[in-house]
């Protein structure tokens, strides 16, 4: 830190700092810490090893096109199915939580507490192994995945959607009812569309979380064609004895999640315009 050449007029000279000087000092300290951390990583890590392990271009090249055509496509498919089912169930649970019939509220609360409280992995195992055993049925992998991801996602989405519905001003329902709409009609035509606009950002976060949870599908046992990004990366890691496929898989997740983040921002801007 350089001392200022002149002390501003009216400010006491000596040890006490002006506000601007103090802000400068705080900012300087933060840059210092960041630089020190970067230097530590740069000096202490074995960059040759890191390059071999993560950035082996030959291994990376070998992952294509399967990492896209199979793994990425499967991740998107599993997530989309789970999200669609979870959204529907979440909306139903949200409406149950707002119901004037008490048992509806109890059921919804119990469901949400249960599925929010247990790890998604347990739900996958229960559905993948427990249900076929109990009912002597074989459920298709896509259906199992859709149910498992959806059941978990619904618990989170229900609370989000409920908050969204409650955030729609009461005057909206009054206006709809005064035009002759029934309670149900007003809910479907006026309240729910506005509620979804309100909860679009948190719902998209939910979608991003589900994208990552879709990796749990591995416990069901996957054929090569059914592999999603994480399983694909792990298998390729074993085959190549290199961590590079993990990096490739990680980048593929970002291909999904970063545009989703951008989408939220666009939708938020549009919603702000219509509000």
């Amino acid at each position, binding site marked *: 830190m350089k001392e200022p050449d002149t002390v501003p007029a009216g400010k006491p000279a000596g040890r006490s700092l002006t506000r601007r000087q103090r802000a400068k000092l705080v900012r300087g300290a933060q840059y210092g810490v960041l630089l020190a951390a970067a230097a530590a990583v740069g000096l202490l890590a074995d960059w040759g090893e890191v390059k071999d392990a993560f950035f082996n271009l030959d291994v990376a090249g070998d992952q294509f096109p399967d990492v896209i055509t199979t793994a990425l496509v499967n991740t998107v498919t599993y997530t989309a199915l789970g999200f669609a089912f979870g959204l529907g169930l979440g909306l139903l649970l949200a409406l149950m939580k707002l119901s004037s019939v008490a048992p509806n509220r109890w059921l919804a609360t119990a469901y949400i507490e249960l599925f929010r409280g247990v790890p998604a992995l347990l739900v996958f195992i229960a559905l993948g192994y427990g249900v076929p055993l109990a009912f002597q049925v074989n459920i298709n992998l896509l259906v199992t995945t859709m149910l498992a991801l959806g059941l978990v996602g619904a618990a989170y989405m229900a609370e989000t959607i409920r908050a969204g519905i409650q955030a729609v*001003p009461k*005057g*909206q329902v*009054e*206006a*709809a*009812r*005064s*035009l*002759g*709409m*029934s309670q149900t*009609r007003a809910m479907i*035509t*006026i309240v729910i*569309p*506005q509620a979804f*606009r309100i909860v679009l950002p948190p719902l998209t976060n939910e979608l991003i979380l589900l994208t990552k949870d879709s990796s749990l599908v591995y416990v069901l046992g996957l054929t090569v064609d059914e592999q999603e990004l994480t399983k694909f990366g792990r298998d390729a890691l074993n085959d190549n004895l290199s961590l590079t496929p993990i990096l490739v898989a990680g980048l593929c997740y970002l291909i999904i999640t970063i545009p989703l983040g951008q989408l939220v921002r666009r939708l938020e801007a549009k919603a702000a*315009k*219509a*509000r």
Partner: protein
Amino acid sequence: MSTLDKAADKAAPQAPAISVEGLHKSFGDLEVLGGIDLTVGRGEVVCVIGPSGSGKSTLLRCVNMLEEPSAGRISVAGAEVTDPDVDIDRVRRRIGMVFQSFNLFPHLTALDNLTIAQRRVLRRSRSEAEKVARANLVRVGLTDKEKSYPAQLSGGQQQRVAIARALSMEPELMLFDEPTSALDPELVGDVLAVMRHLADEGMTMLVVTHEMSFAREVADRVVFMDEGAIVEEGAPEQVIGNPQHRRTRTFLARVLDPAAAEVAEL
């Protein structure tokens, strides 16, 4: 159709637009309306005035059952809305309502705000609903705004769209709940002009308002309410021009000339 229904149909044209008998409304321990009797004839324009908290808005909201009365009977256009067996949604189609805060649907364009209930409630086709909607946008002077979202309109424009939305249901009567109270002063005139025009067309109107000049010029009858009761009612020149009750005089003095009223109170 039973003979009873026929009798009701025949009686309907003679029945008043609104008939309120012994209306009580309490929120918990707080009594907001303490026995209101009011009749509004067909084609009549009635303005309800009074200090805030006097129960005017609650009275209006009871007429289309947005508030459930604690006691009393209300009939609108021959249908008793306080009857628990009446299909209130059917009756509400015939009652237009305009709110202080507009309550336009922010996710729909102006045109869609006008068509949504026509299509979903009256089951009109889109083209038919849009025809009616455009005609009503002309009526309120907003033909060029049909593609705008409510947030893109000024308060006065929003309120005129809200009036057009109510009119698109082709109601038999209109309720106005302080329609200009949320507006900037320079935007009040446009909304009042639309309401004046409606009154001239013979629309039955029950208007809760603080606009004394509107009440004086447009109303057939003015009702002054205070503390949940009707204190005084009659022709505007009588109630506003020559009030009989002290409470009416105090209120009018405050509304018409706030500065002078304060001096008088000192």
